[in-house]
């Protein structure tokens, strides 16, 4: 029964298939095993001392935000990169790929379908990484507390470093939120990524409870 369900949701490109190699031999490809690591993630070591303080300063002053607008809060991201609010002056930049970003701004409500992508994007980011929850939807569901397709509490699925309240928060609030995040990082408290790894089973159980078609590896990096 469990197997049936898994197969039903498996995307065709993730199915086990046979591929003819250029030299004519036939190879069996299992994308889920071949393309992704099956290892459990390990927490990184949190160091202390002046060197680490300096590096923390560098991490705080160079926040690279993943350009993934998950909800309506993303409408306030363009004003942030344009003349009025210009977040570049604070060392905050947008990046196009999760591999090169540290900050994941969950901009508003997360539908179940997006949550799945958000988890993948989050897990692909290099540690130490930070999550900023934007808007009341990420805090308690906000306007959509009774919706069948949006999550209520973000911190049950991803570790959240900072919440910015409001529906939707103004650009000034976002800048203030980023400043708060910087303070956290400079104080050496920005290690929620480790928390995620240490409590992986709890997070995964919560995630799998609502994502019914879990056709991805448990941890993909």
């Amino acid at each position, binding site marked *: 029964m469990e197997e049936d369900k898994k197969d039903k949701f498996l995307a065709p490109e993730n199915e086990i298939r046979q591929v003819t190699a250029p030299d004519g031999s036939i190879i069996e490809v299992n994308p889920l095993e071949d393309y992704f690591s099956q290892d459990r993630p390990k927490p990184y070591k949190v160091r202390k001392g002046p060197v680490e303080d300096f590096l923390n300063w560098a991490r705080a002053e160079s926040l690279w935000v993943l350009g993934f607008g998950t909800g309506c809060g993303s409408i306030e991201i363009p004003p942030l990169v344009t003349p009025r609010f210009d977040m570049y002056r604070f060392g905050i930049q947008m990046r196009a790929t999760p591999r090169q970003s540290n900050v994941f701004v969950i901009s508003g409500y997360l539908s179940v379908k997006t949550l799945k992508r958000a988890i993948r994007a989050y897990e692909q980011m290099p540690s130490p990484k930070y999550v900023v929850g934007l808007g009341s939807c990420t805090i308690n569901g906000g306007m959509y*507390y009774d919706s069948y397709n949006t999550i209520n509490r973000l911190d049950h699925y991803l570790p959240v470093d900072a919440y910015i309240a409001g529906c939707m928060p103004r650009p000034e609030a976002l800048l203030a939120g980023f400043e708060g995040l910087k303070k956290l990082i400079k104080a050496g408290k920005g290690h929620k990524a480790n928390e995620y790894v240490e409590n992986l089973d709890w997070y995964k159980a919560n995630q799998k409870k609502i994502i019914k078609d879990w056709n991805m590896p448990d941890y993909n990096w």
Partner: protein
Amino acid sequence: MQKGINNLIEKFGASDLEERRPGLSFITVENTKAVAAITHLKDIDGYTVLSLITAVDWIEDGIMQLTYLLNNPAEIAEIGLRVMLERKKEAGESMETIHHLWPNAKKWQQELKEMFGINFPGSPNINDDFILEGWDAAPPNRRDFDTKKFAEETFFPRPGRETHDPAEHMKKNMYPKNPADYTNKKYNPNR
């Protein structure tokens, strides 16, 4: 406008004409004649734009209403064709497809299948996921699906959130002595 409606009534036995405003009418057609009526409207009466296809769940009457809204850009007129299907307890009403008339009809039909459980045999990719992904509960837009209950069971509501019925809440807080005052007052923002 009038010609199209007359045709519908004469040729396809349409009934329950309701003129909402000049240029917008709703009319009921039997489900066996609906596709023929739509084809006639499109090809002969000039209703060339399909504005939307949607459904209304009249659970009390056991009726699932389909609404096809057609637009006639030349005469600036719109007709809403109501098609009454017999509502089944479990999803699975069935209706003829019109994807051959408008290519984008298949998307609406896909959505109706997903959100209401109404089947359109023959419509392309009708069983594919459209909006929801991995959904295994009842079709969410049917009236018997309780979204609040579902949300409370599935997600993790943050404790401390209280939801009041606004009427009861105001009655209790604003007119604690004589609740009857509250019902008599009318809301006037200019005051």
